[in-house]
């Protein structure tokens, strides 16, 4: 078993699934000869050819739209949008079409596509390259939203997404691409969609996080008796695991890098306030970015939730 980073793990998942299932095709900007701007698809064009690793024109809406048509016609497209900020121009295709095709056609057509996109801040890139707008996509009931937190979950979740019969948005935390290395088994394994992962056991407070904030949350809790849950799938999210932990600890801190208002943390807090309120001993706190547009590099450290902010929230809920 090799130590891989997330780029390598995702690349391996794609390569293995493409070898296993000839219906799997990739499409996106610069994913072919260039191997993707983060090199995630490196080597796949050479190995599988231009018919299965398709360098598209610069057309996000058509990338998503074409993937829908491919999926409905028997392929298993994996579309890449170069950065999450450019999903906005493919937004209609994703939420009004991909997420609804099965319902609109009453099951005659389905839409098993995966939309991969680098996501999140902290990489010193230009505007719209560091968005973390996952909550936008969690309001589309027909769309799954998945966020790995490391190489192992990245591969396993991606393979599961590729085999899922419905559309999946697969958000790749860019800051982690090459930061973490983990043992990643070669060959097939899946991480089940819709299941959270207990990243650390604890009894006094539950910390909910995903993507690149998981890494930060784990650092923050070092000296606390905190349970850390890695959501992995945001839509549908694993309420059972979340509520089970909250009912045990009675305290919650939610960490996400998107702006606070109407971020996905709101849904988690609301679910807890609805289903577990009698077990709560303290306010449900959200540690999130402030409600400002995602800034450029020189302000990014002020924007992203810090370890200190997480600790301050832990201290606060533990006062109750």
């Amino acid at each position: 078993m090799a130590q891989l980073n997330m780029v390598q793990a995702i690349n391996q998942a794609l390569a293995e699934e493409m070898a296993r299932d000839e219906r799997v095709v990739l499409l996106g900007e610069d994913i072919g000869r260039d191997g993707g701007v983060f090199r995630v698809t490196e080597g796949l064009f050479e190995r599988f050819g231009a018919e299965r690793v398709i360098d598209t024109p610069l057309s996000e809406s058509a990338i998503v739209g074409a993937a829908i048509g491919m999926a409905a016609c028997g392929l298993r497209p994996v579309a890449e949008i170069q950065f999450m900020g450019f999903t906005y121009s493919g937004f209609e295709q994703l939420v009004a079409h991909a997420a609804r095709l099965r319902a609109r056609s009453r099951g005659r057509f389905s839409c098993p596509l995966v939309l991969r996109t680098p996501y999140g801040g902290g990489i010193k890139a230009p505007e719209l390259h560091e968005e973390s707008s996952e909550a936008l996509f969690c309001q589309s009931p027909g769309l799954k939203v998945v966020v790995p937190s490391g190489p192992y979950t990245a591969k396993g979740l991606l393979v599961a997404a590729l085999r899922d019969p419905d559309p999946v948005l697969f958000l790749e935390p860019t800051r982690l691409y090459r930061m973490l290395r983990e043992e990643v088994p070669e060959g097939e394994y899946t991480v089940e969609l819709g299941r959270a992962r207990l990243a650390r056991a604890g009894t006094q407070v539950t910390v909910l996080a995903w993507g690149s904030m998981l890494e930060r949350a784990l650092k923050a809790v070092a000296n606390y008796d905190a349970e850390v849950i890695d959501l992995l799938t945001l839509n549908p999210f694993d309420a059972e695991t979340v509520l089970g932990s909250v009912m045990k600890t009675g305290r919650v801190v939610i960490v996400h890098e998107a702006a606070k208002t109407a971020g996905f943390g709101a849904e988690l807090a609301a679910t807890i306030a609805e289903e577990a309120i009698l077990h709560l001993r303290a306010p449900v706190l959200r540690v999130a970015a402030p409600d400002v547009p995602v800034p450029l590099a020189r302000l990014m450290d002020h924007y992203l939730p810090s370890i200190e902010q997480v600790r301050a929230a832990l201290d606060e809920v533990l006062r109750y």
Partner: protein
Amino acid sequence: MPEEILASFQVRRLSILDENGHADPELLPGLSDDELLRLYLAMVLARTFDERAVALQREGRLGTYPPIMGQEAAQVGSALALTPADWVFPSFREMGVHLTLGYPAVQLLQYWTGDERGQKTPDHLNIFPFCVAVASQIPQAVGAAFALKNRRDPGAVVVYFGDGATSKGDFHEGFNMAGVFRLPVVFICQNNQWAISVPLKGQTAAQTLAQKAIGYGFEGIQVDGNDVFAVYRATQQALEKARAGVGPTFIECLTYRMADHTTADDAARYRSPEEVALWRARDPILRLERFLAARSLFGEADAAQAREAAGQAVDAAVGAMEALPAPGREEMFDTMLAALGPRQDGQRKGR
């Protein structure tokens, strides 16, 4: 060195059957008498269905409905050129295509009552659901063409849309992608000259829509959209090109929306009765009747009989539609995902 001409382009227009029913013998597609009658009957069925649907809406038995009157030649002529291996991506105003391809009239009616079950295409047909978000079906059709090409499937893809759709980003992105990959897709624009209240010249400064294909590096052609032979011929040629790997074609069918935009619209607010009258004289069914009559394939009695038969078929569909049970609450849940999430599962059970 100074100024030079880099490239030259021409846009052609095809018409075969004129308003008086005279056809150009060289261009007339080689259709048997039976096939000619089939074309005619399909157009009558489309017209009859449409009239009935409008009437049903007025009686409150159907929801808002977008009439196709005047566009029968564009719809039937193109649909009859298709083979069962082909895929169709409609907008929301192609009931004539659906009927010609054998889509159950009862389901069309059902859909226009606001019942999604009407959108479940029968297994033997490759017709995508109606698409109300203008132009968004175009990139999807291009993706389907990708899939057919990738799978070495013998079919081609036909996608329908209106003149208004040509202003949308998705029209552009889809056309451009189809051009780059030379995909087997035929783009059929029913240029009925109005997008609700916006006339063609409010939609584009281009003199024709067909010329938009020049920007994508493939052929665009304008056909007389009220001429069923021209539409049929152009579609068939485009499909052959698509199947032969030559790439996409854009067919602009210049036609006219004889009725209101939908039953919720009042076209008298924005266009003149003279304009409508002008186009009424160019009725695509009328000119086919004249053609058939000149060939002695057809007399007054045949017209009445055709209408009668179509009326009966539509009546039967109306009866069947109205006998259907209302959709139950669980319909919202049962086809939206292969497997519901836990919360949805609870909601389905009423929790």
